[in-house]
């Protein structure tokens, strides 16, 4: 299974290595660097790289490459999924998963990796169990530890490991018993030149934060469970019950977790809450062009669209952009194009290429998953329950927005988009 793990930062330094079997020299990463060089974008590095003796499987998260070295046949998804789980765990422990955070907590990281894999095979990956084995570092605990000399490492076998509910630790106690559920829906859409929707789909998740004493047994029922056609569950959900009654019944893990994610496919009609129009022209013979963008809300039944964000990649040749937004602010980030060969100025012409515009917004959805009720069994107290609904933009893009190739990003931000307001951006054009 997984032989070794190398953590490589954006500048190509190996800043952490861990071996579960015999030591693999870090020179194996040279193959990775080669592939990295060949790829134009950081995310274009192939996830699986074969080398003469090993295979490198890498994952890019938070601008860090997690490169696993394996020696023999293993399902690649197995490794990829595990690496993502490692990143999630780091994030859970340190709040962020950056190079600095990992370097600061290198001992905890090492202990975690030691517990998560035994001889390359995953051992404990549930964060509830890991937290019992190795306490996450907090300022308070560090202080207590230095004073009392106690340790970060749990001495007892986490009870969850052996029980039928391995995801929940035992002996949980809270004074305020709370259970929060966030129903977050993201719309992915592709819109063609004429503005009609090619595909649109909803990707939803229910993230939960459950802080309940003891061993609560929760059931969650929905107003419109028929929406949940394509679902994946946290292991705690009793699948049989869902099949039979369309009710989510589960003993939750302690703390934050993703209860389920679902997918409403493109067959169902998804209304896109905003429209966007754009135009870009270049004046012949001059180095200037004009870039117009109009953004407005569609029928949203009087509700405001909040936090609209449009980002658009401009061609490499663009040096600067001056824009006059009617509402909100804009930023132009020339950094992302730094270090690349600028495209030939002469070759750019209107309408020949179509890089994307990304549009992010929060909006109300026409039909969305609604939670009916939440019940708790197995414990006697009354918990506080909260449910929040949110719609976000996922990958929302227009096929042909903005012309010419390029990488510098242009970002507009506005707080709310009232049903009546229309924003236009005009610019003196890319310079």
């Amino acid at each position: 299974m997984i032989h070794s793990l190398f953590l490589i930062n954006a500048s190509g330094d190996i800043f952490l290595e861990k071996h579960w079997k015999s030591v693999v020299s870090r020179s194996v990463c040279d193959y990775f660097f080669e592939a990295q060089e060949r790829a134009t974008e950081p995310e274009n590095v192939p996830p699986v790289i074969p080398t003469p003796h090993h295979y490198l499987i890498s994952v890019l998260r938070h601008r860090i490459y997690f490169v696993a070295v394996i020696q023999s046949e293993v399902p690649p998804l197995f490794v990829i999924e595990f690496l993502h789980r490692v990143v999630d765990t780091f994030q859970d422990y340190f709040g962020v998963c950056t190079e600095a955070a990992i370097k600061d907590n290198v001992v905890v990281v090492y202990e975690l990796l030691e517990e998560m894999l035994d001889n390359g095979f995953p051992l404990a990956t549930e964060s509830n169990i890991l937290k019992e084995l190795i306490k996450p570092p907090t300022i308070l605990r560090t202080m207590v530890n230095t004073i009392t000399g106690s340790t970060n490492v749990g001495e007892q076998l986490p009870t969850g490991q052996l029980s039928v509910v391995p995801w929940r630790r035992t002996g949980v106690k809270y004074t305020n018993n709370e259970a929060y559920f966030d129903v977050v829906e993201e719309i992915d859409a592709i819109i063609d030149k004429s503005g009609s929707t090619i595909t649109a789909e909803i990707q939803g998740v229910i993230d939960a934060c459950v802080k309940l004493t003891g061993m609560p047994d929760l059931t969650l029922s929905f107003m419109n469970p028929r929406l949940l056609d394509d679902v994946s569950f946290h292991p705690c959900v009793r699948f049989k019950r869902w099949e039979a009654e369309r009710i989510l019944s589960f003993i939750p893990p302690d703390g934050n977790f993703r209860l389920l994610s679902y997918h409403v496919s493109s067959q169902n009609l998804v209304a896109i809450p905003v429209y966007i129009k754009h135009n870009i022209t270049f004046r012949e013979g001059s180095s200037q062009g004009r870039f117009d963008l109009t953004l407005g809300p569609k029928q949203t039944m009087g509700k405001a669209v909040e936090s609209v964000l449009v980002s658009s990649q401009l061609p490499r040749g663009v040096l600067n952009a001056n824009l006059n937004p009617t509402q909100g602010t804009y930023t132009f980030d020339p950094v992302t194009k730094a270090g690349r060969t600028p495209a030939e100025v002469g070759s750019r012409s209107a309408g020949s290429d179509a890089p994307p515009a990304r549009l992010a917004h929060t909006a109300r959805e026409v039909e969305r998953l609604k939670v009916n009720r939440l019940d708790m069994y197995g414990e006697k107290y009354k918990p506080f329950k909260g449910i929040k609904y949110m719609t976000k933009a996922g990958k929302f893009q227009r096929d042909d927005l903005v012309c010419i190739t390029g990488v510098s990003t242009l970002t507009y931000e506005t707080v709310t988009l009232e049903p009546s307001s229309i924003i236009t951006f005009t610019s003196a054009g890319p310079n």
Partner: protein
Amino acid sequence: MLDSNKDSLKLEAMKRIVAMIARGKNTSDLFPAVVKNVACKNIEVKKLVYVYLVRYAEEQQDLALLSISTFQRGLKDPNQLIRASALRVLSSIRVTIIVPIMMLAIKEAASDMSPYVRKTAAHAIPKLYSLDPEQKDQLIEVIEKLLADKTTLVAGSVVMAFEEVCPERIDLIHKNYRKLCNLLIDVEEWGQVVIINMLTRYARTQFLNPNMNESLLEEGSDKTFYGSDEDEEEEEEEEEEKDKKAEAPAMAKRKPYVMDPDHRLLLRNTKPLLQSRNAAVVMAVAQLYFHLAPKAEVGVIAKALVRLLRSHSEVQYVVLQNVATMSIKRRGMFEPYLKSFYIRSTDPTQIKVLKLEVLTNLANETNISTILREFQTYIKSMDKDFVAATIQAIGRCATNIGEVRDTCLNGLVQLLSNRDELVVAESVVVIKKLLQMQPEKHSDIIKHMAKLTDNIQVPMARASILWLIGEYCEHVPKIAPDVLRKMAKSFTNEEDIVKLQIINLAAKLYLTNSKQTKLLTQYVLNLAKYDQNYDIRDRARFIRQLIVPTEKSGALSKYAKKLFLALKPAPVLESPFKDRDHFQLGSLSHLLNAKAGGYQELPDWPEAAPDPSVRNVEVFTLLERVTTLTSVPEWTKCSSREKRKEKKVEKPFYSDSEGESGPTESADSESDSASSSESGSGIEESGSGSESEESEEGSESEEEEEEEKEKDKKKKKKELKKPVQESESEQSSEEERKHERKSKQRKSESESESDEEEESESESSQSESEDSESEAEVKKKKKAAESKPSSKPVKKDNKKEKKEMSLLDLDDFEPAPSPQATPVNAFLSNSLATDLEGLSLSDAVLSPATISPSSALKSYEMLHRITGEGLSVEYCFSRQPFSPDANMVAVQMQFTNNATSDTKNLHMEDVKLQSGMRVKEFPEIELLPAGEMVTAVMGIDFCDSTQAANFQLCTHTRKFFVSIQPPVGELMRPIFLTENEFKKEQEKLLLGQLMGMNEITEKLTLDVKCRNEHSIVQRVTTAANLSRVPCGSDKECSPPVPPPDHPVHRFAGRTVTSSSLVLVTVATKEEGAAKLTINCEKMVIGTMLVKDILLALTQ
């Protein structure tokens, strides 16, 4: 700092060292200082030392040995976490010298109480194997043992070990197959992946291809339509046609396919895992379905796979690779999700290319227009690699779908005027391929392309154009020489590939139009003659010889035109994923399209399914019967049809017995309900009462016999009669033996009993009616007691029709010797009780009390003679205290060797118990000569439950799965109480916390034949191991004195394990009416006991 006394300093030092290790610095010179701290009390220091040790022990083997003793101590620690971590580190230290120690440790840990430690042991197996492959055989033993483990925690890890150490030993899986299938959903996700992959391979070897019929046809149609890229629909039409034509050989081969229930079980149990949050699990299930499921069912995986496309890009990459492979074979599956594969400009290039691949595979007449429109958008992308891939995809669509060929070609030609050279070049290459299919119509395109030679610099494109012009120079007779002229000019500056094509063009033109091009060709060939590249020089020489007519090479030059201008077959544009599905999907090898190290080939479906019965495990829960389905060491190949027949025969067998005696865990039942059905049957069983069991047993064994017969019938049809006789005689003789033994027991136990008692017995058994077996039995016993040789007449009474056979068969059985350990103790204690009784009361009703324990020790069959291959085992509850452990119930087992050869080394193994239960095994029986009989006693602590104790009975040759399930009445031991004490206890129980909960009352009508005191007492004591409370004092204590003809009988006992009181009261009334009251703290026991006694008294 490491030498300091303070833990905090040590910790600080270790932290720094670990940080250095993490950065890849060499810290091996600190080894001695670190190893010293391995025994440190502070657990964090310890852990960090472990980290260090595992990293450097390989380099410093000698010093590492210093730490071994610490781990060995750790292996014995009462804390399972420490045991596990000690084993983990010990096995992770790669020092060859300690291999034997590791082996020992693993073996020990494999039988550890804690499943966590066992899991660690499973992890340690591959470590040891990689260190020393010589240990393989021993490790396989451990794996075999761990595979039988029932905890979900262990399952994943041990299958992992299995895959690494001995993936070829598929026979180890047989017995655990169903268990693994059923546990699968509860195993942790990583284990699931490994198990599913392993089971896929297993199923491929063990089951028949569910698409057998289709594949047969596909083969047939493939032969005729080889290479054709028709739609599946078309193919299916083809199939239908074939069906109608009833292609003779295919039909002959075709058998009605019935899916093996185990195959179905696997598919059913993995399906819910498609909803897993873990992409690897979903992928594993998807590949399982793809490889194993019937065509109609594969569709379910599409939705789940499409869902994974929303995950991280790395996951997408792998999933798309697999989808691409699948979409070639099963296009229909993904068609509804076409739009999910539309490309976003934010996708990484590799994902774009893969999506394109999938889209191309999915393209057909109906959706091609939408797909092409999408492609048009993609061509505008700024990602050049992607654009090139798109153009190729268009080309592939054009070749595959005839209707759009022209549209595509036009589109591609338009691209030729694109500003981007790369786009143009790629288009040229694709157009070249397309034109080859129908060159006649497109001379204008060729002309257009000829013009491009001035601008295009990409060598591949230039070469393609030149080839085209050369190939179709007849269509463009004017332009071609001109192009050659231009090329000849720039020959020296061209790339090699272009030069070769120039030579080609020159040669072709020379042959068709030698007038215009003769000189040009000579010039080009001369240039090529002095080229740096030897390929070009070679080619030039070769062509010159071929085309320029000289005296020597006349023969060949005649054919030169044929050689060069032969019609070339159009290239087929194929998906690079075409043949990838011979790798197991989802595997690394599949992803790389190359065999990775350690990859296990996915075997082809077998022609005929191997014996499915190898997967049968313990198919019993019946109380007194044990069916043994023992493993056949090597599955015998036999045709599937036979197998199915056998199955069909077997099924009614199980269901029949189910009907008789409650739910049974039959072979293909979903055993997730196994435990419940077990207990359920237990209750019903004991509910049916002990008296009736005798008769039931008779009938059941009869049935069984019949089944055996039927099996035999199938196997050897000729020898039909013999087995019948045998089995019948067997049955009767068995019964006889039982009687014999009982009579013996009785004889030995109750010889001293008074005549009066016997008289009463015979009185009570006056009626000859058949339905009351017990009466008949009592009678038989009596007779047997009177004269042993008269056992034959007894049988005559009993079953006259079988008399002869049983007579014949009699000499098969030696007269049963009285059980070795006759319940002397029980007898003693009872007589003691009687003494006491006599002391305190000296009542007239003394003798009935004494007979209670001695009456009818019922024996149950554990191993039948036929299933046991001559070895038969019966067991009974001897009701004597088990001396080594007071909490155990003594089980007396009687082994009879009916075979012709001796049986050696009888012992038990592999005891499977419900939690809390314990077993004290009987000492190994070294030798059981043929025809002999031996008795042994074992103790079982049933924990006051009627759960069966399962174990394997091993002889020197065979293993038999057997189980012992106690009737509830045997879970208690008699205690002596006076009536006053009895009443006090009863009150106490009643006033306890759960008022009324401890008392169960049932009204009943006594059987006609057991209205007298004696028979009531006897029946109750037969049903349960209780002792009678002398009731003479009734009149003294209780004010409402029952009339003397309506006596109250009381019995008392304690449960064996928890020593809770069991008080039974039977109050008789007029006309045989009676009231049964049971007081017991254990409600379950109480209710079960009520049923038992009720049955005993009413029948």
